[in-house]
């Protein structure tokens, strides 16, 4: 079970932070608790764009099975800094929606943060948040300076109560939180239907398995700029989650990447480009990402499709001289023949794949994609063998 725990203050020293650190350690066999700080988040404003820190903060909550709030009390309510964090995470894309939440708090005095916790319950119950807050189970640890010694809870009664309440929270998550399979099927819905293409027919099961087997992963942004589907390929480079389905393109991409992504999508929409390729390093190996405009038979824009895959095995073949090009002794014409294989289809304007790469102006393409028809006959025969 993956939980995030939000330190409800931006102060340098806080017993509420110590409480969460204690819970993180004490309950490590039951849950993986990641502590989130709010002190680096900007002050909420509807006029400010989402920045990277807020985006990462929201993502962490979105991917967690539950959230623990540890709140101090300022003026009988929650600190402004915590309120600001809640405003960010519930504004536009609300990542607290139906998220199991637990409220804890501690203070120097005997009251703990009882009144702030009551406000926080009301805030989390507002339609803007609509979190599933665990009722009862009030963790009100007073006299914090006596209770917390060297990162441990000295009071056995406090410890037992915390253990009991945390157990209840874990049960609460397991029984009431929406299961992944409630919204997304583990297996796609299949029946005996099949699709009849001009070039043959495929059953729905075959379609699914083809999409999971082809040697790259696929992500689809539809024509309304929403992330609507990804291929269920094992060991993906980009790990995606079912609860990201339906997100706007501005929500599923980090703010710093968004301008580039929008530039690509807009160029697909206005027809100025059909594809963009990006070679890059991911997880220590060489990866090629290729974006293609997905177009209907009449050419209208259906969406942007992103292919991502490791190219290590292809480059290894190349290094081993599989096409005789890497030893530098073979003539230029032979090297051209290699690229000629794709050029053969590049000559055929109807072929979306290579036609697209020929239009690519991203200047990051592998050289083999450059159009060169020197050895076209050779390439053509090569192509026809397939």
């Amino acid at each position: 079970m993956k939980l995030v725990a939000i330190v409800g203050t931006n102060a340098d020293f806080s017993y509420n932070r110590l409480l969460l650190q204690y819970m993180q350690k004490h309950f490590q066999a039951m849950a993986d608790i990641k502590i989130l700080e709010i002190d680096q988040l900007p002050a909420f404003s509807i006029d400010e764009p989402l920045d990277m820190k807020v985006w990462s903060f929201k993502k962490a909550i979105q991917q967690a099975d539950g959230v623990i709030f540890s709140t101090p009390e300022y003026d009988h309510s929650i600190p402004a800094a915590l309120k600001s964090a809640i405003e960010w995470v519930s504004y536009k894309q609300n990542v607290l929606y139906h998220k199991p939440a637990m409220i804890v708090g501690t203070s120097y005095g005997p009251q703990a943060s009882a009144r702030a916790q009551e406000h926080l319950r009301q805030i989390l119950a507002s339609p803007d948040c609509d979190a599933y807050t665990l009722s009862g189970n009030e963790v009100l640890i007073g006299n914090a300076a006596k209770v917390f010694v060297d990162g441990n809870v000295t009071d056995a009664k406090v410890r037992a109560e915390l253990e009991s309440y945390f157990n209840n929270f874990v049960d609460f998550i397991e029984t009431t939180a929406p299961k992944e399979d409630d919204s997304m099927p583990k297996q796609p819905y299949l029946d005996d239907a099949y699709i009849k293409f001009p070039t043959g027919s495929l059953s729905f099961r075959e379609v699914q398995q083809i999409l999971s087997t082809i040697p790259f992963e696929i992500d689809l942004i539809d024509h309304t700029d929403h992330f609507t589907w990804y291929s269920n390929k094992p060991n993906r480079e980009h790990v995606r989650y079912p609860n990201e389905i339906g997100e706007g393109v501005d929500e599923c991409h980090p703010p710093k990447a968004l301008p580039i992504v929008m530039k690509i999508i807009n160029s697909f929409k206005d027809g100025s480009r059909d594809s963009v390729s990006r070679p890059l390093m991911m997880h220590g190996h060489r990866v090629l990402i290729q974006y293609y405009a997905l177009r209907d038979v009449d050419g209208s824009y259906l969406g942007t499709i992103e292919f991502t895959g490791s190219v290590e095995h292809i480059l290894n073949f190349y290094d081993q001289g599989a096409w005789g090009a890497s030893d530098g002794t073979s003539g230029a014409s032979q090297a051209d023949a290699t690229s000629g294989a794709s050029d053969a289809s590049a000559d055929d304007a109807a072929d979306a794949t290579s036609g697209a790469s020929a239009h690519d102006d991203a200047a990051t393409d592998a050289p083999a994609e450059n159009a060169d028809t020197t050895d076209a006959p050779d390439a053509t025969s090569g192509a026809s063998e397939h």
Partner: protein
Amino acid sequence: MKFVAIVGSNANQSVNRQLLQFMQRHFDEDQLDLVEVKPFPMFNENHPATDPEPAVKLAEQIQAADGVIIACPEYNHSVPSGLKSVIEWESYRLHPFKNKPVMIVGASKFAQGSSRAQLHLRQILDSPGVFAQVFPGNEFLLGQAKQAFTAEGDLKDQGTIDFLTLCYNGFKDFVAMHQAAQEAQA
């Protein structure tokens, strides 16, 4: 009388700002000085080590005023963090709200007119660190606020203006009563 009127929203477009601007014009026998929350940094008990300049200035303004009027929006059924942060600054090292009469008004796009945020704000202003004298009752809740103003920024509905005037005059009586009590004590 002289009042400090705090715009509880840091948004560029705010019906609560419009409401205070209307009150400023409409009740021109008094002086209403509008204060924005946007210039205030997020409250932090460690940083900065001294009170930021807008907090010091507001404390002086509040001290010199007969009372404070706060226009409160509602975010997540509570007080917006921008306004809460200002109150935290004004209740940490500075305490200008102590014994200061405060009137709460509020507007929202929907029917409630920030009713739940106003209740939270009352509780916050009533806490020992703030210790304001909050004008009881007289809940001015301006719902459907996007449709409530003319192009010139005046409230359209005479009944609404009458009720606002009733609340406002009641607040002035409350301030006078409070000042008389303090003089008697001194």
